[in-house]
């Protein structure tokens, strides 16, 4: 009984933290000034928050777990959720990177205070 309560609370904390980061990502997407900073908010915030939420689900699965022999379907669900975590962790930053790269190749100018701050332009002087 006490084990169930503790695990429910831990998973709720994970999911709440994920939701807070989701809120941050959504606000960043709306409020940041240019394409690159918006993608930064969406990429970082979405990755971390979906990871936290899915991890919260995985922890919640443990709440009526007694032994490996009798509860192997629970283990299977946890394994699938962890697989989703890995998948998100690999794909989400990559898609953000690819979008940013496409934006740079399409000559979207980043918002900078003075041209010196744009280090990427120094790396690609031909642009």
């Amino acid at each position, binding site marked *: 009984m006490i084990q169930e309560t503790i695990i429910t609370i831990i998973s709720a904390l994970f999911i709440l933290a994920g939701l807070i980061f989701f809120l941050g990502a959504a606000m960043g997407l709306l409020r940041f000034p240019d394409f690159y900073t918006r993608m930064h908010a969406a990429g970082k915030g979405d990755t971390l928050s979906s990871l936290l939420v899915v991890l919260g689900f995985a922890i919640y699965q443990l709440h009526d777990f007694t032994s490996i022999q009798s509860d192997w379907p629970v283990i299977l669900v946890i394994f699938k959720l962890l697989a989703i975590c890995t*998948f998100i962790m*690999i*794909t989400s930053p*990559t898609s953000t*990177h*690819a979008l940013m*790269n496409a934006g740079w190749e399409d000559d979207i100018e980043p918002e900078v205070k003075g041209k010196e701050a744009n280090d990427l332009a120094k790396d690609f002087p031909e642009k």
Partner: protein
Amino acid sequence: MKWLALLAVCATGSLLIYGVSDFPDWGSANSPANGGVEGAGASISEVFIEETETLTKVPNIVTAVLADYRGYDTMFETVVIFAAGMAIFAIIRVMRDTEQTQDKTQLDSSVDGDHQRIIVGTTCRILIPVIQLFALYVVAHGHHSPGGGFQGGVILGASFILIGLAGNLETAMQRFSEKQFVSMACIGIFIYAGFGLLGQFLGGDFLEYGVLQKVLLTDGEPMARSHSMLGVEIGVALTVTAIMFAIYANLASKGELKNGL
């Protein structure tokens, strides 16, 4: 010619709308699906829900309905996908040799991975085997859990599209050439129709899977139906995979199948 096409579309549309008047009322308790036809026993839904498991040994009723009870319909759904691919092939595939427009240096840098491509390329190298394995799982497990030929085929096709998007179309075409995907699409249809015809040769109806027990050497007719559904799903998956990639390859390269996106 345009007016003729418009006339044909309007005629077909009005026939379809006319057919709606024969439908049972919305939510009617006496429709064949809910209440059954008078004097014909239990309704269709009841039969599907109660007897699918014993008659076909397939826990997933959706797949049983899709691949067995209305297998004829699903066969032509697959043919529709095949026809869509062939239509795109017929409309935009350019058969004459066009000169190589892309300069070689640009092509090489994207294959060998300059630093802009290295992240995307590495991610694809890690993920594509997993995606393809998952696609095969979805196909093979279609009659036990959600999934099946269409879904698995789309995932498998998407993995090849991902190769094309991450590198370039040539890289993807090296792994899945035009000859391969066109013949794969045909083989898929052939497998499906072959299961139907095999049933006829063994004395049953077209797509009657129960009689295939003599060929599949299974333990009773229900198991034969289960295995035949798997075979049919594999056929669907082959066609869908090939057509998905064929559509992408043709659209992305304006029908030249080189210098894609």
